[in-house]
Each structure stands twice: as structure tokens, then as C-alpha cells.
């Protein structure tokens, strides 16, 4: 019966955080819709993979295990995922907005002829009234995302087509506490019946996957810089502050686009979503896409020469001043008082 289905991204035998976060979210949505959560695990050497997924509350896990299914390539994964979706007919499908998910989800949505919304920052169940047809719909998925340069927030619905598909970036949803005793039902999906020779049009010749150098989502203190930092050299001040107070350096999209910081440090809708204990925004004006990635921080300090900067409206402390003089003072007084 029309459940919520989550695609699990698996690399090196590890189910990615974004997939587990989505299962946690799906469990909440399913409680509201009175349906179940199904997880899909496609890959190679998946023995005991359910041990990583079950604790988050997926009622059913579909497992398709074949040595040709790792590393991920588009066509074999979409063939199997599509097969499962056609069989199970879920009402909602959630996929991580990673380079895998953003490759897979649109292909699936196209072949199922259903709607897909990328990079949602929130998912809510609600009603919809179509003003053109006068039809009313209950229990639709609101797919909420900023659009057009962050000047607006759009709520998207797919009233007539199922499944309703959405991708969500890592860190946007919260991974809930795991229950080791939760048991999922396992459904084995035989890939050899589904896959065809033409599905192997793409061959992987080389693959260098690097461990993440920057781990923003796991950091408690983030010193983040925007375009206002002014230069790549200007960022060295932020690194110094982060080093002294024990944090990591983040950046806004404007700073990354300007080449001040590498993309892995980007906080926001198209970067990483963070929830640290302390977020220090230096020279960041605070566009909605940026705020979407950090407004869950426990405490926000903003340093900006412009007292009217939008970031100040969500800051706990707004320092009106030039970061180039404020940060050295922060370093100095932290060192002085932390002994």
C-alpha cells in the first residue's frame, strides 16, 4: 500500500548519512499518513546492510545485491529502483541530493512521468486546492525550497501524479535516535531478471574517492566568511580564529564563487547544512539560501559593517564593525580569558 520509499546511497559498505536522515524524516511523515517506510539498498556485498538501516525505523528493506551494482552507475541503479517503484507504488519517494541522487532521481521521475523537486529544505504533509479545476487534494507532500536567488520560497505539490519525488541535501533533515531492536522486513530483489546488457553503457575506468577533508556537519563551532571577507588572504584571519577557539571554517556561496574558499566549505542550500553550537558569520549578508543552511545553529554571532544586513535579524549577537579589526580582538580576548 502506498508507502514512502527512500533510496539508500551506499559507498564502501556504509549507508550515507543523508539516506538515514531521510528515513528518519520518512518515519515521521509515514506516521502522519498512516503508512510504512520502505528503504531501497542497491549495491554489491550488501550482507548485513539491514543492520545499518533497520535501527532508523524502515519497515521494509528491498535489497538488490550484485557485483555489477557497485560502484554506482546510472542505468543499472535506475532500472532496479524503477522496477521496485513500479511494483510497490509508493506515494512518496525521497532521494539524497548528492551527485548520485541528483543523477538518479530525474531519470526515474522522467520514466515514471512524475514530479520531482530538487534540494528541498522542508517537507510537510498538507492539503491543496487547485484553483483552475476546483479539485481538492488531501495529504499531499509540500516540497518546500528557496528559488530565484533566494528572493522567494516556493511550495511545490504534485497533485495528479504519483509518486511525489523530492531530493534533499545532507544535514537538512535530522537523523533520529536509533533503535537497535527495530526489525525490518527484508525483500530480496533479483537483479539479473531486471538488468539488460544495454544498462552497462557506462564503464568506470578510474575512481578516486577522497575522504572528506572538511567535516562541517560534525563541527560544534563554525567561523564562516562571506564576500565581505574580501579575498582569499582575508580568510586566513578566519582560519586563525577557528584554530584558536577550536572550530572549522565555512563560507557562503558568494565567497566560494569568488574563489576565497573551496566548495567543500560552502554552507547553505547548495552546500552543507550545519547545526553547530556556535556559528560566527563574518562579512556574510545572509541570503536565504545561506540562512537555510545555518539557521538551526544554537547561537549565531554576526560581524558586519552594515547594521541592516539580513543576517543580523537571525543573529543572537550582531557586531557592527569591520571583521578585520573585530576578529583579531576576538582572538586576543579569547586567549587572555580562556586560561
Amino acid at each position, binding site marked *: 500500500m502506498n508507502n514512502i520509499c527512500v533510496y539508500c546511497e551506499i559507498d564502501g559498505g556504509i549507508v550515507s548519512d543523508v539516506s538515514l536522515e531521510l528515513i528518519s524524516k520518512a518515519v515521521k511523515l509515514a506516521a502522519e499518513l498512516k503508512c510504512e517506510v520502505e528503504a531501497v539498498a542497491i549495491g554489491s556485498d550488501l550482507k548485513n546492510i539491514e543492520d545499518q538501516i533497520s535501527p532508523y525505523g524502515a519497515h521494509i528493506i528491498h535489497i538488490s545485491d550484485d557485483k555489477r551494482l557497485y560502484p554506482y552507475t546510472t542505468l543499472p541503479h535506475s532500472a532496479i529502483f524503477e522496477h521496485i517503484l513500479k511494483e510497490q507504488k509508493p506515494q512518496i519517494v525521497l532521494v539524497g541530493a548528492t551527485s548520485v541522487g541528483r543523477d538518479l532521481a530525474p531519470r526515474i521521475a522522467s520514466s515514471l512521468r512524475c514530479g520531482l523537486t530538487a534540494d528541498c529544505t522542508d517537507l510537510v504533509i498538507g492539503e491543496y486546492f487547485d484553483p483552475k479545476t476546483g479539485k481538492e487534494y488531501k495529504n499531499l507532500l509540500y516540497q518546500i525550497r528557496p528559488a530565484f536567488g533566494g528572493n522567494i520560497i516556493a511550495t511545490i505539490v504534485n497533485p495528479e501524479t504519483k509518486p511525489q519525488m523530492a531530493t534533499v541535501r545532507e544535514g537538512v533533515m535530522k537523523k533520529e535516535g536509533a533503535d537497535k531492536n527495530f526489525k525490518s522486513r527484508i525483500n530480496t530483489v533479483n537483479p539479473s531478471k531486471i538488468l539488460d546488457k544495454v544498462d552497462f553503457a557506462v564503464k568506470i575506468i578510474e*575512481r578516486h574517492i577522497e575522504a572528506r577533508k572538511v567535516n562541517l556537519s560534525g563541527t560544534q563551532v563554525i567561523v564562516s566568511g562571506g564576500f565581505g571577507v574580501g579575498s582569499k588572504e582575508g580568510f586566513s584571519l578566519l582560519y586563525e580564529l577557528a584554530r584558536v577557539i577550536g572550530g572549522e571554517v565555512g563560507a557562503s556561496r558568494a565567497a566560494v564563487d569568488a574563489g576565497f574558499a573551496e566548495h567543500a566549505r560552502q554552507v547553505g542550500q547548495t552546500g552543507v547544512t550545519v547545526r553547530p553550537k556556535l556559528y560566527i558569520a563574518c562579512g556574510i549578508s545572509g541570503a536565504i539560501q545561506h540562512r537555510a543552511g545555518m539557521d538551526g545553529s544554537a547561537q549565531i554571532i554576526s560581524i558586519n559593517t552594515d547594521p541592516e544586513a539580513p543576517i543580523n535579524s537571525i543573529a543572537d549577537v550582531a557586531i557592527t564593525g569591520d571583521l578585520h579589526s573585530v576578529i583579531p580582538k576576538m582572538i586576543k580576548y579569547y586567549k587572555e580569558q*580562556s586560561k
Partner: protein
Amino acid sequence: MAFRIIVLAKQVPDTRNICGDAMKSDGTVNRAALPAIYNPEDLNALEQALMIKDKYKDTEIIILTMGPPRAADIIRESIYRDADKGYLITDKRFAGADTLATSYVISKAVEKIGNYDLIISGRQAIDGDTAQVGPQTAEKLNLPQVTYAEEIISVGKGKIRIKRRLERGVEVVECTLPALVTVHGSASPCRPKNSKLFMKYKHAKTFTELQTIDDDYLNQTIRNKAYLNIEELTLDDLDCEFEKIGLAGSPTKVKIIENVILQGKDSKVIGDKDIDIKNLMHELITNHTLG
């Protein structure tokens, strides 16, 4: 060896400059009210095609774009950089399309152009950042797709080798042709316009644009030179099912558009004097936020 390459490019509103009246009441964007630019990653895509043409001179690059009449700029901008020709898909009946309806129409235009080895597009457009039209077009055409391409390493008989830029590393893949490739912004930037090509093609116009040229001599000159005519494709030229196009063919509906309203928090505003910063750091240490 030579290849026939279709480059999908889009004219996008410069989303950095959206002003209040740029949205229509139905939630779609009033593109006419915004400055229009060549979508940045589509320029990266064009460069990859041009690099293949540098190597294999007889390669033909065909630009395919979809949008209002003024999107013909994209074709001119591409021809100034040595693309061979272009088609503009334009028809009010296609308006309001989401990525699914858009990719359907594009796939129909690609089928009409036909006989291609490769389709290249940017990974995503800055107005939506969805990265969906590439893979969806590939699916509609039943082609393999390679997304997040940073470099086309080599292209040969029935095969292409591509370096992909992923979040956490790189991958080199080999794919059979024909295929659809989407190019990441980390790929080589596009070359500038060539001044000779610019002089030759600056009057290239679509049929719709010709209607607005009152200068009879210029109008006639353009009409007489086939290379100055940019072809338009409307619904009548494409074999589309009516219920799959435009707003009606789009499964996603915009329920509501909300303007971003800043929610005021009780923020403490402080200055940058030494005593202010000293007190702040003291507070952060004593309440265990730091250390």
C-alpha cells in the same frame, strides 16, 4: 573523424537581480522583467564541444535552446564562439513547463534534428538549480547519461571518455555513443567571442526578430543570406502530444510563493570596541559555548 554535437543551452534570468514585479500571480517568473544571461554551466558545455571541434575540424556544433523570442541571443552568442548553427524552440504553448515537460519538448526537437553523436549541456541552470533537464532528456531519448563532467578526455568511434567531478573525488568513465553529457562548472571556462565571427553573424535573426526590423534593406539582406537565418521550432514543427507540454504537462505545481520575510530575533547589537568584544568572549567562555 568528425562528430555531430547538439549543445543544449539556456538563457536564464540573472537571479542576482530579481526585483518585486518579476513574479507573475500564478507563481511563474516574469522573465521579461529580468536581465537575461547565458547560463554559466552551458558555456562550460559549449567549450567542451568547441574543444572537440578544435581537434576534429569537420565537427558540427548545433545549439538547441528553448525560451521566448529573445533567447535567440544564446544562439548568436554561441555562433560568435564558433558553433555552426542553432535552433530556438519558442511557442507560448510551451510556457509554464517544469523540467519534465521541458525535457519532453527538447527530446522531440533533438529527434527532429537527428543524426547526432553527442548531446552536451550544462549540469544545471542558475534560475532553478535543479540539474534535472539533462538526465530527463537522456531518459526520453533512451540515451546513457554522464553527469558532472569536468573534462571530455577523448572521443572516438562510438565511445567517449569523460572525467567526472563528484562531491568527494573524481571518476573517469567510458560511455558508448550516442550519449548525453552534462558539464560541471569546474570545467574549462568558455573562450571569448571571435571578432570575425561576430562581424559576420551579428545580424543573424530569427523569423520573429525579422518582423521587428523596419529597415527594408537590412531586412532583405538578412533574408537573402541563409546563414543569417536562425531557425525557430514551434509546436507545429514538433511531434508533441499536447497533454505532455506546457503547464498542463507539468506534474509539479507551484502551490504558493512566499516572499522571504525576515523574522526578527531578539538580537543583541554590540559595537566593535575592545570592551564589547572582551565581554562577548568572556560570556562565550563562561557559558561553555567555547572551550
